Structures are given as structure tokens and as C-alpha cells.
């Protein structure tokens, strides 16, 4: 069968190409960047947006779900950007690096410790050229084609940064638009720090966010990366975190997805250094008619590494959730210890959840465990709480919160964990 049969472009696909043609010359970057953008748009023309026939997008038919496309958002005035940032609560004591509508605002950055070197990605050389432009990577294709800015950051060798480094992505304005930022972050050998990547935006306005972050951990580096995705209720969010782990490095990723109408969050980790460890804890909440897809790919490429992933999901109303977890263990990666669990509560008749673990193991001396559960709340637990005088609704809420928030217990930043719990509580309370 000829895979390249003529395919009619969808409205969104046609628009994306048209928008690119109109905006290409005004997008930042040197010749290499421009060439990369051309390649990306050529890939989009060739493959289109993925359908369910693309394996990695089987449960998120992007071509069908992404109905519209918007022009890259213009850089707002500083006053407007500041106002947009102020509209959201941010943790105090956090180093705030604002990206508003895909544009970095160095003027609005709070004080940055000397250990961190940060600049606009546009100032860096050939910053946009990386990542595959294959059919299954539309996030990188779109982001490469349309990225307007982002951060280039280095956390210096051996340094410890105590405050959380907060990448504050905000969407504002009264016009549908596309915000695309791209970040390249290096945590040098022996450095230790914590990041948060938060995405917030307005309700009632359709917009698209594409976000790609490339993160490198050097030898013995330690980092925590917290993703808090709270986009507006009509937003499309396409986010990707690509990580390379060096020898003896440790990374913890926490992710909370509460916002957006159409969401795909990808975490791709190349475990490239021996004795490195990775922990991922994710909470994904799908209500209304939202579609939230979390897809992770872990590549254990060297011996003696550990990874652990736990996802707790709630789907309710007409919400739909997806988890795809791929673990690849290369032939030389002996003594890999990889564990993955995905537990989901379905709370309404019209919601849905699909879970797909994929293990590709080529080494023979490894521990790989995976498990997925999809269930309603445990009746016996509900009865026990009610028998102590707790009304059914409250008992339900208590159990749902416990189920979700349990996996944040390990976070050693109590204040931050509490802030995440508040976000989860707010989402649940809005559903009563």
C-alpha cells in the first residue's frame, strides 16, 4: 500500500502552513534556525498532524481533535505582561522567569542567583535545531516551526540553588493565538536545583501552547522538575520535556495536569549515565469534555540505572484520559530497575481512560514492573468513612484526594507539595 496517498489537509493543517508562510520572515533566529523551521514545515506538509494510525498518537487523534490553528502571538507590552503575571498566584521565594505568550520577559525576572546563567533563547546561536521531525513528533515540528522565544539556562558546576527556579508560562490577550516557547537548560556536573514549569491561561478563549524543553543533567547533578499545567478551559496544550541524564545524576519529575481542553504532555528521558536515577509522579485530571494525554518514553541505555513512575488519574464528567508509558532497555543496560504504575479512578458513566504500557527489553538481567488499574472508589472504604459519620459526598472527596495526593508525599519541598495539593483540591471542589 502506498503510504503517501494524497491526503486532504484539514482546516488546521492548511492554516498552519499558511500562517507559517506569512510569518516566517518575522520569526527570530539565524539562517540555521530558519532552515530548521523550513524543514519542520516541510515535515508538517508531508505528514500532516498525526491520526490514530500513528502508533504514538493512537489514543489522541490530533488531526481530528485539533480543529483550528492560530497565528503566533505577538509580544505583549511589558505592562500587559506584568498584569497577566500578577493575575496568578505564584509561590513566594521562587525565582520567576516569565514567558508571556511565548515571549521571555527578562525585565520582569526576579533576582537570579549568580549560579544561574539565563538568557533569551533568541540570543543563543542556532538554538532551535534539535529533536526529530518525524511524523510521530508533531510537538517538536510545530514548536520548531513557530517558536518565538524561550530560555537558555545554565546552572553552574557544583552549585546548589535553594529557591525553586520557576518558568512561568502565561497566556494572555483577547485574541486566539499560538504561544510557542522553547527552553534549553543545562544542569552542570554536581549542581543541585529545582525547577517548576507552570502553564496558566485565560478561560473562555481558544488558544494553543506548544512548549518544548530540553534538559541535560551532568555528572552527579540533582534536580527536581515540577510541571503544573493549568491552561484555560478552551486551550490546546502540546508540551514536551526531553531529558538526558548523566552519570550518577538524580532527577525527580512531578507533574500535575488540571487545565486545558486538549492536552498532550510528553516526557522523553534518555538515561545515558550509569547509576543515575529517575522518579516521575504524575496527577492527571480530566473533566468537562477535556482530553488529557500523558506519554512517556524512557530509554535505559546504560547499566545500573533506576526509574520509577507512578501516575494517578481521575476522569469524570465527559473527560477522557490517556497514559502511554514506554520503557526501552538496551542490550547493554543490565541491572536496570524500572517500575511503572498507572492508577485511574473513573467517576462518571461518560468518562474514559486508556492506559498503554510498552516494554521493550533487550537486556536479560533487569527488573521491569508495570501495572495499571482502572476502577471506581472502593465501596468498603466509603462505608467505613460513612460509618464514622462522614457524609457520602465528603467521604468520596476524601478518598479521591487521598488517592491523588498520596504520590506527592515524597516531595521534600513541603511548601511546594502543599501548593500542588491546593491546585488539585481546587479542581475537585469545582466539580461538586
Amino acid at each position, binding site marked *: 500500500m502506498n503510504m503517501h496517498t494524497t491526503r486532504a489537509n484539514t482546516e488546521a493543517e492548511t492554516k498552519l502552513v499558511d500562517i507559517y508562510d506569512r510569518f516566517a520572515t518575522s520569526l527570530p533566529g539565524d539562517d540555521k534556525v530558519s532552515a530548521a523551521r523550513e524543514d519542520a514545515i516541510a515535515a508538517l506538509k508531508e505528514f500532516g498532524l498525526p491520526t490514530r494510525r500513528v502508533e504514538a498518537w493512537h489514543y489522541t487523534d490530533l488531526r481530528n481533535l485539533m480543529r483550528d490553528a492560530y497565528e503566533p502571538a505577538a509580544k505583549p507590552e511589558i505592562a500587559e505582561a506584568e498584569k497577566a503575571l500578577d493575575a496568578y498566584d505564584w509561590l513566594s521565594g521562587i525565582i520567576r522567569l516569565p514567558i508571556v505568550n511565548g515571549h521571555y520577559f527578562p525585565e520582569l525576572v526576579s533576582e537570579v542567583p549568580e549560579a544561574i546563567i539565563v538568557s533569551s533563547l533568541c540570543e543563543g546561536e542556532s538554538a532551535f535545531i534539535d529533536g526529530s521531525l518525524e511524523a510521530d513528533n508533531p510537538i517538536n515540528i510545530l514548536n520548531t516551526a513557530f517558536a518565538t522565544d524561550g530560555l537558555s539556562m545554565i546552572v553552574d558546576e557544583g552549585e546548589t540553588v535553594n529557591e525553586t527556579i520557576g518558568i512561568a508560562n502565561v497566556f494572555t490577550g483577547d485574541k486566539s493565538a499560538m504561544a510557542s516557547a522553547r527552553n534549553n537548560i543545562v544542569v552542570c556536573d554536581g549542581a543541585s536545583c529545582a525547577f517548576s514549569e507552570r502553564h496558566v491561561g485565560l478561560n473562555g478563549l481558544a488558544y494553543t501552547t506548544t512548549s518544548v524543553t530540553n534538559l541535560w543533567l551532568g555528572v552527579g547533578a540533582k534536580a527536581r522538575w515540577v510541571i503544573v499545567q493549568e491552561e484555560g478551559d478552551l486551550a490546546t496544550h502540546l508540551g514536551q520535556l526531553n531529558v538526558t541524564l548523566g552519570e550518577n545524576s538524580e532527577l525527580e519529575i512531578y507533574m500535575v495536569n488540571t487545565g486545558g481542553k486538549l492536552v498532550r504532555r510528553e516526557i522523553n528521558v534518555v538515561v545515558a549515565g550509569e547509576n543515575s536515577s529517575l522518579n516521575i509522579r504524575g496527577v492527571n485530571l480530566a473533566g468537562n469534555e477535556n482530553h488529557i494525554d500523558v506519554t512517556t518514553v524512557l530509554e535505559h541505555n546504560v547499566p545500573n540505572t533506576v526509574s520509577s513512575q507512578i501516575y494517578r488519574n481521575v476522569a469524570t464528567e465527559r473527560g477522557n484520559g490517556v497514559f502511554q508509558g514506554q520503557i526501552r532497555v538496551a542490550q547493554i543496560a543490565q541491572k536496570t530497575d524500572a517500575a511503572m504504575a498507572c492508577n485511574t479512578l473513573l467517576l462518571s458513566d461518560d468518562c474514559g481512560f486508556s492506559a498503554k504500557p510498552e516494554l521493550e527489553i533487550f537486556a536479560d538481567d533487569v527488573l521491569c514492573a508495570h501495572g495499571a488499574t482502572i476502577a471506581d472508589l472502593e465501596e*468498603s*472504604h466509603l*462505608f*467505613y*468513612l*460513612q*460509618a*464514622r*459519620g*462522614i*457524609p*457520602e459526598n*465528603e*467521604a468520596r472527596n*476524601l*478518598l479521591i*484526594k*487521598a*488517592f491523588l*495526593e*498520596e504520590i506527592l508525599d515524597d516531595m521534600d519541598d513541603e511548601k511546594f507539595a502543599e501548593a500542588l495539593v491546593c491546585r488539585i483540591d481546587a479542581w475537585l471542589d469545582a466539580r461538586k
Partner: protein
Amino acid sequence: MKMLEIKNLHARIVEDGTKILRGLNLSVKAGEVAAIMGPNGSGKSTLSYILAGKDDYEITEGSITYNGQNLLDMEIHERAAAGLFLAFQYPLEIPGVPTMNFLRTAMNSQRKFRGEKELTTPEFIKLVKAEAAKLKIDMNMLKRPLNVGFSGGEKKRAEILQMALLEPKLCILDETDSGLDIDALKVVSEGVNALRSPDRAVVVITHYQRLLDHIVPDSVHVLSKGQIIKSGDKSLALELEKKGYADIIEAAA
């Protein structure tokens, strides 16, 4: 005054229609400690679940009156707020819910339902500390998720702690002695005895006389095939221990 009055109660399991209770009659007065004894499968646990309000059972006939109210009309949490407490034979492990958080939610839910003022944090902590000390419960245990990783004895003590804090009017102890060693049995029994009062009734469900050495009952009732077939004072329990259930069941048949 009669606190609990069960008349001609017939009940079956909703799922498969199995008849469990077949015309059970029982009345318990305020201040009374009533023991219900019976062989496996006689309906002891079913009775305790029906009193608490578990919806796995269907009442086909009869009535339960609690302090003058129709108990069967009340929701599970309403029964608890009205003072009914079931100490579970197998207390549930509930991951992710810290015990302290649970205790506070339960106490304040009941207070709210009764129109009483909710406890402040210091008031609550003071109460828990005092009661936990009496039951030899380490406060660190209460920071852990409810019953998760507790030993059998710890779970039973945690049940009695809940009972002490919630100050119920009618306590139903479902095989509280199962899984307890002699020392734990003593601590738990002392906890129950401390709650004995003229305006509180206790229903002790048990297989064995052993628990009744520590919690001395005012009345003893033998349950067999879903009916109370014999009632008496504490000497009936001793007789059962000596002769076994078979004789009494035969004599009643």
C-alpha cells in the same frame, strides 16, 4: 429505657438473595452490656453491618428502633452522628488518608450534623493525645495513613480510640477480640470498660467467653441461624464455653 429494639428482623444478601436473619428479636437498654454469641455463619456480623447501614443487605421484614427512631430510615452517617458506633472486625486500611485527618473529619462531621460547634485544632489534638495515651497508642502511629501497616492489635486499638473520641451512645463490637494477644485484649477491654456508663449501651459480638472475662456482660444472647434462640445472664456464656453451641442449639430446636 430501651435504646435498641429489634423486632422480627428478616434480612437477606442483596446480591444472591441468601437469607441470613430469620426473625431476630433483641432489645438492649441504656447502660446495658449485651453479648451476642453464636457459631460461624449464624448472622452475627450481618447483624452488626445492618445496624451500621451497609447496603449489601435487604430487610424483608421487621423493624429496628434506636432511641425511638426508625433506624432503617437513617443514612449511614446519620446513624453514626446519632451515636451508633460499629467497631469493625476487620478495620479497613485506607491509603493516603492520615489517621489524624480522618479522626478530625469524623468528629467534626458528627458535630456539624448535630448542630454543635466544630473542634479547633488545639482542642482536637488535646483530646486525641489524652485518649491515645490511655490506650497506649503512639502519636506517631496516628500520623500514618489510617490503619495502613498497623498490626492486628494496633488496628483494634485504633478502633477503640475512635470509639472513645466519638463518644457514641450505642457501641457494637464485632469480634473485637479476634487477632488480639492477651496484653492487647486487656488494653482494649479496659478501653471499652472505661466507656461503660448508664446512658451508653454496648453490644459485644464474640465467639468466645474469653473477651467476656474482661468485659462482663449484663445479658448474653445466643444467635443461631438468624434467630436469638436463648437469652440469659453472664452464666450462659460460661455454659456455652463448657458445653459448646451444639447442645444449646439442639435444645432450642
